[in-house]
């Protein structure tokens, strides 16, 4: 279906191709994320979803193609510059600062976000605004009780919450969530899901997930990636009814990712 042009996409991939030697990991992907979207990216394992995220965030350089953020071509920008412009991601495998506490972690991310990351004369706790925002985020992600524990000693569920809290601390305009509930025990998924669902409406979200329940309850748009290329795109109802998509997942247990 042709996309109704009711808003300029906030994030676009234009013809992205990534080759590693003889392997084409990303095959001519064109993708638009609309403002305020809850856009899901699904596909079987090895389809190249994480590679696409890496291309969008600048961790990998595309062989061909462009990435456009809010009208600006960011293809040549380093990862940290993209973050400055509001493109933030989380990682499928927790990437945390293990020797620091959640409080210290968030304080440093927020300081960096507010342009105070290079301040070398004042202490980390010197800015009351930063500290207040820390408390807010810690409460929102149920991390207040553990805020002074070194990250390496935190339980997995709390680590996963911290992983996402860090991304939120960057004040994202576009948030790329890479399998946010991966590995989280069933009891703690709800907590996480609610936090994801409660994200502000003006933050555009691109979500990679295997958990189809989450995807269908969360997304208003879905893109299906197979073998590095876009198979199809559409609303959840369209995708659910799509025969090709069903064929791709045939034989795969879809309920648990």
């Amino acid at each position: 279906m042709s996309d109704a042009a009711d808003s300029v996409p906030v994030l676009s991939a234009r013809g992205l191709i990534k080759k590693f030697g003889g392997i084409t990991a990303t095959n001519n992907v064109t993708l638009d994320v609309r403002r305020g979207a809850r856009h899901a990216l699904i596909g079987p394992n090895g389809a190249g979803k994480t590679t696409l995220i890496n291309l969008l965030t600048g961790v990998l350089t595309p062989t061909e193609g462009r990435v456009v953020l809010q009208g600006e071509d960011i293809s040549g920008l380093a990862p940290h510059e993209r973050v400055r412009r509001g493109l933030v991601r989380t990682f499928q495998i927790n990437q945390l600062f293990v020797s620091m506490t959640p409080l210290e972690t968030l304080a440093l991310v927020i300081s960096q976000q507010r342009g105070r990351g290079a301040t070398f004369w004042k202490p980390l706790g010197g800015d009351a605004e930063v500290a207040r925002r820390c408390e807010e985020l810690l409460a929102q992600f149920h991390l207040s009780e553990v805020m002074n524990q070194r990250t390496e000693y935190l339980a997995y569920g709390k680590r996963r919450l911290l992983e996402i809290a860090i991304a939120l601390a960057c004040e994202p305009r576009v948030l790329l969530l890479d399998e946010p509930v991966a590995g989280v025990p069933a009891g703690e998924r709800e907590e996480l899901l609610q936090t994801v669902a409660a994200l502000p409406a003006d933050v555009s979200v691109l979500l990679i997930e295997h958990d189809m329940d989450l995807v269908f309850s969360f997304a208003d748009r879905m893109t299906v990636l197979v073998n590095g290329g876009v198979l199809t795109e559409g609303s959840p109802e369209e995708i659910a009814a799509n025969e090709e998509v069903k064929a791709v997942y045939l034989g795969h247990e879809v309920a648990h990712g």
Partner: protein
Amino acid sequence: MQAQQTLIRSNRFRPWEPVLWLAALAIPVLLPHYALIVNEIAIVALFAVSLDLVLGYAGIVSLGHAAFFGLGAYTAALFCKHVSPDPHLGLLVAIAASALLGLAASFTVLRGSDLTRLMVTLGVALILLELANKLDWLTGGTDGIQGLVFSPVLGLFEFELTGRVASYYSLGVLLILFFVARRLVNSPFGATLQAIRDNRLRAMAVGIPVHARLVSIYTVAGGMAGAAGALFTQTSGFASLDVFEFHRSADLMLMLVVGGTGWLYGGVVGAIVFKLMQDALSSITPQYWTFWLGLFLVVLVLVGRDRLFKPWTWIRRGR
């Protein structure tokens, strides 16, 4: 607010800190024949703290930190010989020179694995050693630059044989630079360094300009190490090729392993332990004390720093 209080608290001075510094300042007066070794310890502690900034806080494995020490030493020597015997000016010029070297060399440690960084840092130190050796019209080659005489510290205190003035001079510089470093590591800038050390990928993903931060800290550390080198020359009156020697960089790593990286005082503690050990061992076996040093290193790594200093854990086997 609780969060802010917790953060601030970690920056506050621990009770033992002023005790340590006051004790250090008291020794040259109370125990005058220890003045010389206090001077040596202060110099090497400053050197070690500068490496901690790079190694413990930014996570860069460097085997060539002696490059900055040596440049600082020779700069101070040449400044005294050709420009002015004022030690304070010489110190500032030496800091500037080695900070500049730090800035230039920082670009070599941004990329690559631990091994390549080790090599590149070692290479830079060796290049400087070669240069000092070959440019003998400037540096005196293997003889070095000797017989330097510096004007009095603060215009009042002349360097004398007991080393008391020297030790206070070095302690003073150490104190100032140490507290600058302390401020630095407790700031947001310092926190971003630790983030880079812990997880460079995530640091980039939260907007930290990794390369820029590493360049800054390497420059600062270079300057501090240069200050240590300048102090060395100014309190001993000479500079020789020995300041670029590999064993200086290696000894430094030993100090940080003993004292612990990532808490600044590790350099100080390590320096104290190392110097006292060196003093004791070399009076027993002046020629072969490096053997015992090597043995200590081997045992230290095998047993693990934490267990080594907790003898009660030796009895129980297993991890």
